[in-house]
Structures are given as C-alpha cells and as structure tokens.
C-alpha cells in the first residue's frame, strides 16, 4: 500500500463516514427524545434516493401514494380523537394540517413533468415527498405507544422497518438506481484525484451537522427537544409537548435520512433494501456515543467509514465482520466506563 492508495481509501472512508455520521446523529436524536431505537432510519435513505431516481426517470414515485395513505390515516385518527373529545370544530384544521401538503404535491406532480425540472427542484420535491413520512409515522405508530417500554418500541420499530422495505420493493422494484452527479468537477490534490461529488457529500454533511448544532443551541425548538431528551416529565411540566417534540425529532430524522440518500445516490447504486445496512453502520456510530452524545456518535461513524474502507482493501471478504465486531470492544468499554443510570421503567 503506497501513499496514493492510502489517500484514496481515506477519502472514500470519510465520504461514507460522513453519511454514517449524519444517520448516527438522527438515531441519537430520535432515541434521546422518544426512546425509540429507530431501525427504519436507513429506509429514509433508500426512499430519498429512489424517489429522486424515479422522478428523474419520469415515473410517479410510489412514495406519493404512501404519503397520501398515511396522511389520510393520520387525519382519520385525529378526527376520531376530536369527535371523542366533542370538539368537532377542530376537524377542518386537522384536515388542513394533514392533507394539504400531500394534496398539493399530488396536484403538482400531475401537472408538472418532474423529469424536466432542474436538479435542485427535483431534490426539493423529493424531500417534500419523503420528509413528511417521518412525523406521519410518529403520529400513527409511535405516538399511541409513547409510554411503552424501550423493548416494545424497538419491536415496533423493527416491524416498521420490515413494512417500509417491503413497500420500497413494491414501489421501486428489486433493481437499484443511480442518479446523475450534482457536479462533474474533479480536483487533483497531490497524487489523489478527488471527485466533486464526494467533496460535496462531505461538505454537505458537515454543513448539516453544523446546522443541527446551531438548531439545538440557539433556537427555542431545539432547546425544547434537548429539554425533552434530558427529562421528559420535567419538560412536560414546563409546557413542552412531548408529542410535538416526538414529531419534530422524527421530521428531522426523515430529513437527514432523505438528504443522505439524495447525496450518495450519484456515487453508488441504491436498492430498496440498501438503507438497512447503511443505517446499521450509523447505529454502530451511535453506540460509540452511548446513544446520547452527538460528537462521539459522529466520530464513531467516521471511524466506521474509515475502518470499512481500509478493511475492504486488506480483507474484502471479512469487511462486514470487521466492522460489526468493532461494536463488541466498544460496548465493553462503554459499559465499564459509564455509570449506568436506569431511567423510569
């Protein structure tokens, strides 16, 4: 292995690591706020990438139907709740909140040929299609069982993962897709040739991480989320709604997932079931941070990316084994060094 190969592998590892880092942040966020270990995180990556690909292929993405179905279901549940509380006057607002965006998207997609739009607009459209799935899933699946134990939440999250990946197979088919690169530029640094797209992935990831930092430190919503993560009951007493905190964290998770998908689909082929493994590697990163620390989770995810890249050079057949075996010493180290405090369960 000479310096050039080492550099190329490092570049590759950091690119993948940046994506894993984004996902690990989303996992930590969702877990701290709602105690859900969010297995379907990776599905948003696949949905983001494949929705963009089908928009570009001039097909109507199945995501739209899923969005409409979930929106109608959520509206129905909300209406039943409103009627039960004897507050029928809430119904128009419920309908507007749940169904306005899907209806607008359906109308837009039926008028405008998405394939001819500029790439940036296609990306915006993709995000508009995929991101609302997050809060809708929270409303339908996790909100009714918000007080359940972590184990029950985990089991439900596994079943959501299986359902979503089955739907992805139905919507997008078994074969993968790629989208054209955002930029064809290449840079030469020393011996190494750097693709513009990989640079873009790394920059966009770090920008998003910085934006998340700003969001948590500087905005009221972010602070509300942090408060909920630290102490749910206390936050509730201060007037922070656990439900809206949950919805917000799921929205952010969906945004991060879909955005990661859009970012990496030009550099690799994404399949309906790609998300799971990508999400799992983000999860290994999140374990580094003990499912609580954002910087440690991000660092862990970058390490996973680098380890993966170098092990694929030295022992490609054992790559996954090496990456996932890493979790054992990390768990041992974490359980030996952190003082364990049981939460109210």
């Amino acid at each position: 292995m000479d310096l050039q190969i080492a550099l190329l592998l490092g570049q590759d590892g950091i690119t993948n690591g940046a994506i894993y880092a984004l996902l690990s942040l989303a996992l930590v966020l969702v877990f701290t706020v709602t105690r859900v270990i969010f297995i379907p995180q990776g599905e948003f990556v696949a949905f983001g990438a494949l929705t963009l690909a089908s928009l570009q292929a001039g097909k109507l993405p199945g995501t739209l139907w899923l969005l409409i179905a979930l929106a109608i279901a959520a509206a129905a549940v909300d209406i039943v709740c409103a009627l039960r509380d004897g507050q029928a006057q809430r119904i128009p607002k419920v309908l507007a909140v749940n169904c306005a965006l899907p209806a607008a998207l359906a109308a837009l997609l039926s008028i405008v040929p998405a394939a001819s739009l500029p790439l940036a607009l296609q990306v915006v459209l993709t995000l508009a299609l995929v991101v609302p799935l997050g809060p809708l899933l929270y409303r339908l699946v996790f909100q009714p069982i918000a007080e359940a134990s972590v184990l029950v939440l985990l089991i439900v999250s596994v079943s959501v993962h299986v359902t979503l990946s089955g739907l992805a197979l139905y919507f997008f088919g078994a074969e993968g897709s790629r989208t054209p690169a955002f930029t064809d530029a290449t840079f030469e640094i020393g011996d190494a040739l750097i693709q513009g797209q990989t640079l873009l992935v790394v920059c966009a990831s770090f920008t998003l991480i910085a934006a998340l930092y700003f969001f948590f430190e500087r905005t009221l919503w972010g602070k509300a989320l942090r408060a909920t993560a630290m102490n749910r009951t206390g936050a509730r007493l201060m007037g922070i709604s656990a439900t809206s905190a949950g919805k917000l964290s799921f929205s952010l998770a969906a945004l991060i997932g879909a955005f990661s998908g859009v970012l990496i689909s030009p550099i690799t082929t994404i399949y309906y079931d790609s998300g799971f493994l990508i999400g799992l590697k983000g999860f290994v990163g999140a374990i580094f941070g003990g499912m609580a620390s954002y910087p440690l989770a991000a660092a862990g995810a970058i390490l996973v990316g680098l380890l993966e890249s170098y092990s694929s050079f030295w022992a490609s057949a054992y790559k996954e084994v090496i990456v996932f075996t890493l979790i054992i010493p990390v768990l041992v180290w974490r359980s030996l060094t952190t003082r364990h405090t049981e939460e109210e369960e």
Partner: protein
Amino acid sequence: MKFKLALAGFVASALASVAHADINVGVTLSATGPAASLGIPEKNTIPLLPTTIGGQKVNYIVLDDASDTTTAVKNARKLIAENKVDLIIGSTTSPNSLAMIDVAAEAETPMIAMAASARIVEPMDDKRFWVFKTPQNDAQMSTAIVESMTSNKVQTVAYVGFADAYGEGWWSEFSKIAEARKLRLVANERYNRTDTSVTGQVLKVLAAKPDAVLIGGAGTPAALPQKSLREKGYKGLIYQTHGVANADFLRVCGKDCEGTLLPTGPVLVADQLPVDNPVRKSALDYVAKYEAANGKGSVSSFGGYAWDAGQLLAAAAPVALKKAQPGSREFRRALRDALEGSKNVAASHGVFNMSPQDHLGFDQRSRVMVRIEGGTWKLVH
C-alpha cells in the same frame, strides 16, 4: 342385473371424473428478498406457461419464499401435502433448491429447479433421481469466459465477486478452469450486494495490473465494481457473468459498461440468432409473450428458466398421461421418467437432452457470448 349395470355405470363415471383430474404444478420462487431481481421475472413468466397439456387443464400454485431457505422447504411441503401437486418448480436460488431436494425425494414428486448450482443435479443419487434443473451450470459459463479470454490473449485475470454463495461458486468454478488453461489469477476480492463503495477492492485489483477483470455479481449490484474500475482509469477487458443479463443492469451501468463481455443463455439475443438455430423459435416465442404482458424491453434471461421448466413439462406430461392419472403416485413417477427421457426439447435457453446421469441436458447451444454495445446486447460470433 340392472343394479349391477347401474353400479358399473356409476363406477365408470367416477373413474371418468378422476380421469379429468387437473395437473397441479406447485411453484415456489424468490419474488422478495435479496434474490427478488431474479424471482420477479420468473413469477411474471408463470402465467405464460401452457394452461392445457394433452387435453388436461394445468393449475399453477405460486408461493413466494422470500429468498429464505426455511420458507422454501416449508412451501415445498405445503404444496405437496395441501395442494397434492404433481410437479414442483423452484426455487430461484441454489441454497433454497438444494434444501428442497430432500422434500421432493421423500414425497416422490419430481422437481425442476431454476437455480444454477451444478450440485442440485450432481452427483446423481437416489434423491437427485427426482430433481431436474433448467439454468446452465456455472462450469459451462466459466468455460465460455475462459475461452473468450484466451482468444483475446489475456494472461492475467483479477476476480471481484459477491461475498456470498454466488460469488464463491463462480470463483471456485472459474479459478479451476482458468488455471487449467494457464491463466494467471492475480487478485480475488469480495464485496456485498448492498455495499455503497468498492474502492478498496478496486484499488487492490488495479495494483495487480490484470489484463482482464471478471466480476462475479448478479443484477444491478454488479455494476458498482465496473463503474469504480472505469472511474479509477482501468483500461483492460471487463467480464461479467450471466447474472447481470437484464435491462436494469444496462440502465444503471450506462456508458461504463460499453465493451463488457459476458456469457448468457441465447434468449437474451434471440433475434440475433441464426434462423436455423433450434433455440430461436422458442426464445422468440417467450420474448414476444413476456413483452406483450409486461411491456417492451422488460424481458430478462432469468424468466426464461421458468419458461423452460414449462417447456419440459409440456413435452413430458403427454407421455406420463398415457400411463397414469394426475394426482396419483404413478403419475408423478411417470412424469419423472418422462422428464428424464426428454429428447431435443428446444427451449429459450438451449436444447434439453436428458439422461439418467444428466438432469440438465444442455450442450454448447445453451450459451453464447455477448458484448454490450450502444447500451444493448450484441451476439459475439
């Protein structure tokens, strides 16, 4: 006397109703899970198979095994116990098909596998007595690749394959034949179907400076190493396996796949075959029916394996019907014997000539080399 006559008439009519029993065919395939890209075209092919053979109605009962071995075995048992099938077609993958052999043999029900591994029908024993298969052996395909490599004056070869049974199977077949033909194997790398990057493997391959690279992958995932190789400036020959022979692979791989060589069943280039080729008619027939049902350009070579199983059944069932009635043990045995006696059955992937020792029955006509040119498959003469 009258009573006896009536009784005889009743018995005769009862027999006659038995005589009209339908032929039941149980199908288990992998329409979901990792092998879905192979299983879906097979599933789409089943409705195109003959619905009446020798005046008998044929029912197809299709189950999905989700690319899972346990489910495949469960499906096979269910088809035999509940649906009383006369023949099992399936499954899509080699591990699934291998696991189903015991079930088929135990119930004395003939089985036609749509999976490639030679071990499904070799070595012949009491259990494989009941088992047939339609896809070409990897060895046949490997020989075609090695022949093409030697005629292109290739001396050193690198291999990048799936880290699963498919990649491993190809490596063992290919390395055996390549070494016998004095090709030097300079690298052997593995990657996973859902990997987002193969940079490490590709750099290692490039460092070995091979004249040609063989990629042992199936479907669109096989495009990733090829794209990475071209991206990193590899100029040599790239070979793929017949696992990539569908339109999605061309779509994903795009211009990076120009000039790629691969062996495949003749169905992929049916319209380019010489007119006197016996495979041409059945293959064109299949392509026309499949595309009429599923849209233009949708045909892949995988669905052809299911079609060929139907062709074998159509040729064998009339022989078996002369000996026994469907739904009976005797019919299943007669059907097995008739399948084993298949002679010159032209199908979409080749011409079947079975024997007690050979339950695949393909010869050189079952494979062609194709080159990807201008985003389509071109027959290499």
